[in-house]
């Protein structure tokens, strides 16, 4: 989600660290797994949003990848990096709850687990996901247009 394995590992550690220091209160609805997923995706989204200079950083990373890769089709590498960058920017711009839903679903989580994590009913995931995808698509296309 962050586009940087080291950053992802760092955020995962931070998530467990927060759990260790201030765990969710036990009782009715106690769901430590859901809590961990929620905090992890929140941290990842915050990380993306706070990267004001990310464009510069990722462009540099893209150039680095280009220099290091054995790939014989360099334009495709940059194109893929550019797609990922726009995707992250779009995720950072849309409604945070919807961004969280997309992040969880496209990371491979089942509807049941998403419902459990976000404290929703499983039947509501389909409609909410569709709304989130539509908003994402709109923002993504607008960003794409802006950059042309």
């Amino acid at each position, binding site marked *: *989600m962050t586009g*940087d*394995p*080291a*950053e*992802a*590992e*760092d*955020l*995962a*550690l*931070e998530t*467990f*660290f927060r759990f*260790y220091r201030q765990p969710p209160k036990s009782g009715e609805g106690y769901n430590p797994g859901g809590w961990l997923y929620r905090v992890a995706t929140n*941290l990842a989204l915050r*990380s993306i949003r*706070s*990267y004001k*200079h990310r464009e*510069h*950083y990722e462009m540099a990373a893209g150039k680095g990848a280009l220099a290091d890769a054995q790939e014989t089709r360099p334009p495709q590498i940059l194109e893929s990096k550019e*797609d*990922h960058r*726009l*995707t992250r920017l*779009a995720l950072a711009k849309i409604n945070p709850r919807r961004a969280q839903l*997309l*992040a969880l*679903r*496209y*990371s*491979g989580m*089942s*509807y049941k687990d998403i419902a459990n994590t976000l404290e929703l009913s*499983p*039947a*509501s*995931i*389909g*409609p*909410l*996901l*569709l709304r989130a*995808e*539509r908003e*994402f*698509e709109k923002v*993504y*296309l607008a960003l794409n247009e802006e950059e042309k």
Partner: protein
Amino acid sequence: MNKHLNEGQLRAALDLELDRDGMQHLENCPDCRRRQSRLMAETQQAARGLAFLGSPAGQSGPDARSALVRFHQRNDSRKEISMFRKLFASTALRVGLAIVVILAVVFSFPQARAFADQVLNLFRVQQVVVVPVDFTGIQSLTGNDTLGKQVSDLIASSVTTQQKPGTPVTATDAAQASQLAGFTVRVPQGMTPSRLSVENAAAFTLKVDVAKAQALLNESGRSDLVLPASINGADVSVNIPASVSVAFGTCPDPAAPDTGAGLNSGGSAGRRYPDCVILAEIPTPTVSAPADLNIAQLAQIGLEFTGMTSDQAAAFTQTIDWTSTLVIPLPKNAATYDQVTVDGVTGTLIQRPADDAPQYALLWVKNGIIYAISSLGTNSQQAIQMANSLP
């Protein structure tokens, strides 16, 4: 199921997450299948763009054992520095800590230096000394709301600000920065700064309130440390000259709102500002205080408060010339420090070797100016080279 599926159900069916009745209906309903195809086409861009969020093939996360080791390292490291973080979380507490440090310095002027006008104006930084302290004993104070309120009250009732520094101003080059700051700004030869910022001078006075300060010590569980009644009502004034920050690489904007989290928030700023190096330059601040203040004992109290034993604090206090030395308490185990020769004088290189957020600071004093080069990185040699290339 005869009723047509709604859009949400059609979307769930794309993920094979629709119940059995719904899936059966879809199989037998050309109309729903048509609508589902349209829906799929509509959200195709999103699906394609977001697909990379799944774990990339062939790339797995760190193994559990090494992750656990890193977790413990981070936990140990934060135990040491959480005290600093929390203290610096609010302006009031930041000022409070600054005052404690200043008091420790001011109160340590030897009585023999009394002047006829009862005012000293002697404290000027000529050297920097690091003292390692163990903060674990006072970590429990960070969640003490009563103590926090007492610190705020003490500051509100005893500090008067004469001059606020305001928002930093950006200068176009070293010449303009020098003009704005009122001293000659030095920039390493052969390097081009990405930003030069000037922060205006600041000044404040404080009147010592022994009863409140002692109550604060008592609340923090150190009623064994007793402040002398003779310091009550003493006026201390502090003048901090304009300073200049010379940034190289991609660095945070000094004029941006302060979140209290600092440069290293979240432990990942090192990756956000991988090439940022900042050279700070400030003429030494001055502190004026009554000459008959009693005494080096107070510096000792300050050191004991930060974790030293009484004997250690007494021994350390005797080795320091408190009229010219800036003492920096450094959490034990979280950082190391060495003396190095830079810019023709002796400097102090402080390094925090944590693997998640390493950082270093090189400090030295020359011709009445305090210099500090800092970065979230491990290449402290770069700082030494920069310091040695100053004109």
